[in-house]
């Protein structure tokens, strides 16, 4: 796998730093359970230690105390804590704005407001801060799993099924998510980023998704657009206003604005874009897209610049 130019600063992917109501509630539960588990472990090991030093039979009620009463008390506390946490997360049953995410080998198709304006993006999920959003998860091929540890726990994307979860992102910023269900050869390269924006900026973002893609305004960019059209890219990719037929690959209308390339794997810049186009099969083996390694140097530069300009 390509060893160069990864993102310098990924968004946070740890469940220890929460930026969503679900992750925050779960982090509290994790902490409580870890402490309680540690105490129980010390109690049992203490019993082992005492037993090693003792030299006469104990009472049978120790079996009841340690094997029945202690677990039942601990479990009752655990079930109660879990239930309260579940209620706090409120994963289902809300009528919130819907964002539909579909997992594909090995990228993510994103549609905001699927019943209405059906605004499409890919590999970067923009969420409004402090707003309930329902993520509607589907799969286009095998089972994937949607996981952004800093925002919420995971939920699988299963062919033939629709899974939904309601999340509230609480802190604007950039977070990283990753496919958590083994889905094939390039499973490790199937990540994405979540961009949490203040609600006003989110509205602007959505409005931007309705506009046609930015026009090519220099000679090089025009050449890049020509290469894009000539090489058959529109068979799979959409650039609004330029090519609207293909749905096989990610929507590229604002590809240059994304923080990362190749589904959350590399920093978005002209160099990585050119490398990606020329050698995608090396950077992400068995991706659907072929390597366009027959392009001339100027053509490759032009198309990379053109894509980078789409913001």
């Amino acid at each position: 796998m390509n060893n160069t130019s990864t993102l310098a600063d990924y968004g946070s992917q740890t469940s220890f730093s929460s930026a969503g109501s679900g992750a925050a509630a779960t982090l509290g539960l994790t902490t409580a359970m870890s402490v309680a588990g540690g105490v129980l472990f010390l109690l049992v090991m203490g019993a082992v230690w005492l037993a090693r030093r003792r030299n006469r039979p104990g009472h049978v009620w120790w079996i009841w105390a340690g094997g029945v009463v202690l677990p039942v008390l601990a479990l009752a506390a655990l079930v109660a804590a879990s239930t309260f946490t579940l209620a706090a997360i409120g994963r289902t049953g809300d009528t919130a704005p819907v964002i539909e995410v579909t997992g594909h080998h090995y990228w993510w198709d994103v549609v905001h407001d699927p019943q209405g304006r059906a605004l499409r993006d890919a590999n970067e999920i923009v969420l409004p801060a402090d707003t309930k959003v329902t993520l509607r998860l589907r799969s286009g091929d095998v089972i994937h799993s949607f996981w952004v540890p800093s925002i919420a726990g995971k939920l699988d994307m299963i062919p033939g099924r629709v899974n939904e979860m309601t999340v509230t992102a609480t802190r604007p910023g950039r977070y990283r998510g990753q496919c958590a269900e083994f889905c094939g050869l390039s499973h490790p390269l199937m990540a994405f980023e979540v961009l949490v924006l203040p609600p006003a900026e989110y509205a602007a973002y959505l409005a931007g998704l309705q506009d046609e893609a930015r026009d090519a305004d220099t000679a090089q960019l025009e050449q890049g657009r020509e290469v894009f059209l000539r090489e058959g890219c529109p068979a799979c990719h959409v650039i609004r206003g330029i090519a609207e037929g293909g749905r096989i690959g990610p929507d590229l209308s604002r590809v240059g604005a994304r923080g990362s390339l190749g589904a959350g794997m590399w920093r978005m810049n002209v160099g990585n874009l050119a490398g990606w186009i020329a050698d995608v099969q090396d950077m992400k083996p068995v991706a659907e897209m072929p390597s366009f390694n027959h392009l001339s140097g100027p053509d490759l530069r032009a198309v990379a610049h053109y894509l980078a300009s789409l913001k």
Partner: protein
Amino acid sequence: MTDTSADDRPRQGPILDELPLYERAWATPKGWRSLSSVSHRVVGQRFIVTGLGFFLIAGFLALLVRTQLIVPQNTFLDAETYNQVFTMHGTLMMFLFAIPILEGFGVYLLPLMLGARDLIFPRLGAFGYWCYLFGGLIVLASFLFDAAPAGGWFMYTPLSSKEYTPGLSADFWLIGITFAEIASVTAAVELIAAILCTRAPGMSLTKMPIFGWYMLVTAFMIAVGFPPLIVGSILLEVERLLGLPFFDPAMGGDPLLWQHLFWLFGHPEVYIIFLPASGMVATMLPTFVGKPLFGYGYAVAAVVAMGFISFGLWAHHMFTTGLPMITLSLFSAASTMVTIPTGVQIFCLILTLAQGRPRLTVPMHFILGFLFIFVIGGLTGVMLASVPFNWQAHDSYFVVAHLHYVLIGGMVFPLIGAFYYWTPHFTGRMMSERLGRWAFWLMFIGFHVTFFLMHITGLRGMPRRIATYPEGLGWDRLNMLSSIGSYILAAGVAVFVWDFIAHRWRGPLAPRDPWQAGTLEWMYPPIAPGHNFHAIPRVHSREPLWDQPELLGGDAHRVHGVLHDAPHGRRETVGCHPLSGEPLQIVRLPHPTWVPLVTAACVAVGFAALLANFYLVAAAGLVAALVGFAVWAWEPSETGETLETSEGTLTVNLPSRLGHTHIAIIGTLLILVALFASLLLGVMYLWNVQPEFARLAGDGDLDWAGAALACGAGVVLTAWLARRWPNALLDLILALFAAAAGGALYLAVLPMDPLATALAGAVWMTAGFIGVQLFVLLYWSVFLALRKLTGQVAPGQTVPEINRLPYAVVTAGMLVAAAVVLAAPQLEAFT
């Protein structure tokens, strides 16, 4: 390693006059002929050594995984190789190491502990071993064909279906593992029958060594727990080969059906691995404390409870698949419940420890290590039962940490302790106390460095099964340390393996009962003779060697007991009443034979040919195997002979429902019912999940289904009549009824197109399964008729007829269930 020959007897006291006859009867064949041996001692050691081999291979694969992950974006392995390596690591560890090696210990130890001269179906044990070896070799051979499975040990559909995994890799997995599972289920039947039917006189179930209880529950769990996976594997293989769309949502299937079947097996599997190891701990610990197990009854009750509860937990592996919230809550609560029997067992051990000052031997180190590690694994398991936490931790490195705490702590540590404990029994020499301590501390420290950190790695967001990870996500240092820990752990295992090999010439000779244990297997000085017991003593206690001084006092050959002589020069042992342990019959045991090896080889050829798409060869292999089974069973019946023994006159192979073959048939039927239930569950699940496809599946022909039922009634009636008045004519009529029932069943499902919808496909599979059942009855009945017609059967030799009746009843019951399922949609239309 497998040399347990009875001639190796320099340290075994004086030889009695009648021994030569014994020696001839129980001698293990020499040289290459030893492959025909069926003795449990030989077969058990083969299981153990082969399992150890797979453990080392799988462990090596684990080191490759850790080496790949030692730094971010490593290029040591490419993604394809990495996926093969982690898939094979899990597959080998779970299917070809953990279960077989524990069954190997059970096969080796149980007759010795229970007071039997051999396991009750020695040829079945040998057959199971060869199936395991050949199945394992098929799985390993995939590396040679560059087709190693790469879909994970869990083989989730649709990733493992033909569309996303073309080529043979998934077929290698499905066929090889299914084949190896034959070994597990045959061993389960054998262990059930052996534990219930061949205990020493006086050994009631309440006086049985605790290991017997653990293995009995394990065997029942295998009998019920493996069938869902076998059914799932067959469905997936049929989908891949023939295109029946069980898991394709576009045709009425559902990928989650695979997950339900897989985890219906996969969760009990964890306890199937844990229980025997835990049973070893409960056997070894009292020895080192010098006092009996504390709370024997509590431990037994806890083990039985655990066996039941473990079947109600499977969905906690599926908390992130979008199951309804109420289902999640139920399974979450059920999952936490298993803590109670686990806690009871742990506290039985702790209280055993409290009774005396334990000797800190090497096995004792591993027992304490087991307690330390397993308790952590249990606690993280409870955390994972919490739904919201599970959503974060599932499929992250937290789960990797948890499962290794449970499996290495709960199984590998006790197992290595068991090796140190019982190896003197295998080889007559002690392993090294010094090297054993090195092995323990290296393993213990290496283990925690490797796996404790993974809890944190997982909560920091690292998913499992990723071949590389980018730099700078907070995982770099943790992974580096985990990899270093894994090398320390491997060094510990290497020290153990070296000791296991080198003790053969460096180890001191083992004295009689080297650990001052109380269980019967140590009655002889190592190595015990091939027949285990010159005479089988009457047992009055759970720790006979502690409470019955006559057993250890003098020459073991002079101990009084049943079957002191071998007047016929035949292999025989005492069959007991399943509950009281009082002698019931004499069980004649087979001598060395090539039939198990040849039959297993035929099955192996069949499976390998299936893999290579040579269907004619596959069919030929199957037919040859069927002939092999007939040869196997075509031996003169000895039912009715009597022997005078110290326990009175006993009959050989008593025709009774308490007899060992009838108990074994009941065990087999348990497996068959579990298989059938798994299929039926599949049918009903698909019907429920994709109801619109139920209409598309069409209706079966109810008239023919009625005819099949009528023929099924005929089968039961003739089987019942034949039990009362055995004769060849009734056997042939029964065969005819079975054939007719099969034909009618085929016509009943014919209107449904198995390729069009998953539901119709599942109905066909169910019908096909009943067809196989009916074929078995047909084959069996023709076989019995032939035996009667050729004069092989004397009056009163009715064991086969007694055994066939429940088989016929259960098969007819399956017909009824299938008919109800066929009729239900049409009845629904009426209402």
